[in-house]
């Protein structure tokens, strides 16, 4: 049958980031999809040769602007583990607060983009409008809206005053109410459900086999979340991973929607239990040895492999981001879909190409 072959990306209005898919379609049904990467590849892991391990904090934070804070946290945890540094409690809680705020903004951002992928402009705008409040919190408490730069090896760089905590709490109440008001639209609207239910199905077995991570994994019914590893202050917070069983785009959306609210709740818990104390400890010595650390990013499990050699520069810094893990499932999901579903399914794994390629 007659086939249309088209390039989907690297520049494409529905793709916020450059990824390329060579799509072959018949009557708009995808018969073949082949990805091409490399449009965002910088090779920043290699910078560890010429930047010391402290400077690397700022660099790994810029792996991605959406999940930056958590990158820095994961990296710092790795170095701290390697060097045997015990981070003060208050710093641990603060790390949770900011990282969960990051998740909230990332998920709101995604919910908007996802709505945009199926052409629901008003919903997109609504989510992004809500998100601005979270961005304000980021900016007010850290000095930048996106790249917050609050982590350092040994602790955090900024503190939250009691007044700020109250303000955050109040703002988050508004955010929560507004997000809740959109639940019916996001998860129960007829047109939205038509576009997401049963689209891009990934069974739990497939998800495991293809190494899916994060909401993509949890949307397929596997309740695995790195926060269960109880890093930072998660050992002192109530947390249960969220999962939905269907494995379709709708489930992944539902996971993220629920996680948004859950993260708001986690921020509140952490603020309520925030202990007094130091913000950071002085770090002495040079990193040596090997360590693997994992944390939960908005998009899923993030793994850092760090190898120090006793100098200020690391020997190897390897970052495995969740989107990197979610690309193979994506490639498997695409064939058989309609062309119009391609952006929906691509977005449904919440692809972050700059994370993927670093």
């Amino acid at each position, binding site marked *: 049958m007659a086939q249309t072959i088209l390039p989907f990306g690297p520049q494409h209005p529905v793709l916020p980031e*450059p990824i390329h898919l060579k799509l072959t379609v018949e009557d708009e049904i995808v018969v073949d999809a082949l990805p091409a990467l*490399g449009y*965002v590849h*910088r090779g920043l892991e290699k910078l560890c040769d*010429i930047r010391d391990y402290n400077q690397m904090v700022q*660099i790994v934070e810029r792996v991605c602007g*959406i999940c930056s804070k958590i990158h820095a946290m994961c990296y710092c945890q790795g170095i701290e583990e390697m060097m045997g540094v015990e981070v003060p409690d208050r710093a641990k809680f603060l790390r949770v607060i900011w990282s969960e705020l990051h998740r909230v903004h990332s998920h709101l951002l995604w919910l908007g983009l996802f709505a945009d992928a199926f052409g629901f402009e008003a919903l997109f705008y609504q989510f*992004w409008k809500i998100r601005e409040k979270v961005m304000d919190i980021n900016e007010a408490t850290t000095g930048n809206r996106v*790249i917050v730069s609050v982590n350092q090896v040994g602790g955090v760089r900024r503190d939250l005053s009691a007044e700020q905590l109250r303000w955050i709490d109040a703002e988050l109440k508004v955010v929560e109410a507004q997000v809740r008001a959109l639940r019916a639209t996001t998860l129960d609207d007829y047109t939205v459900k038509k576009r997401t239910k049963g689209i891009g199905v990934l069974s739990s077995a497939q998800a495991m086999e293809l190494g899916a991570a994060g909401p993509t994994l949890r949307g397929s019914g596997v309740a695995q979340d790195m926060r269960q590893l109880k890093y930072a202050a998660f050992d002192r917070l109530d947390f249960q991973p969220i999962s939905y069983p269907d494995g379709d785009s709708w489930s992944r959306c539902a996971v993220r929607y629920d996680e948004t609210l859950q993260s708001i709740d986690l921020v509140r818990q952490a603020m309520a239990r925030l202990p007094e104390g130091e913000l950071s400890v002085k770090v002495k010595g040079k990193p040596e040895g090997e360590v693997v650390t994992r944390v939960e990013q908005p998009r899923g499990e993030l793994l850092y492999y760090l190898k120090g050699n006793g100098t200020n520069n690391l020997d190897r810094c390897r970052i495995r981001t969740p989107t990197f893990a979610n690309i193979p499932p994506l490639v498997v999901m695409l064939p058989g879909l309609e062309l119009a579903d391609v952006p929906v399914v691509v977005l449904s794994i919440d692809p972050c190409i700059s994370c993927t390629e670093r």
Partner: protein
Amino acid sequence: MQAILDFIKSSRIKSPWLMHFDCGSCNGCDIETLACLTPVYDVERFGIVNVGNPKHADILIVSGTVNHRNKKVLANLYEQMPHPKVVVAIGACGLSGGVFREAPNVVGGIDKVIPVDAYVPGCPPKPEAIIDGVVLGLQKFAEKSLA
């Protein structure tokens, strides 16, 4: 006739359609660019629409570091824009390569590939700064004649 030409000229700065290209940015700049379009900043007030298609765009907003693969894309897109056109580079990466200047696969800033009309520093710049950048770009846009 003159009145029509004047109207066309004055319309130019009232209707800048922009295209945003993520040229290897970390997303920080991209999401701030996108935020400009959203209700809180709403650049459609100035007639700005994100068209996502070089053939319709007047302003190309580029963020991120240039690498060997995306520089061709960047050049392609620039070429496909009809004159007059302006380029706004945003973020440290777009300006010079930022923290990644010395990373192995980085060529440098946007102006290594295409001429840049406005530079917006920051990492990432705030949406307001991006609006400033577009405004500066528009001034140049108005000056450019149909080449």
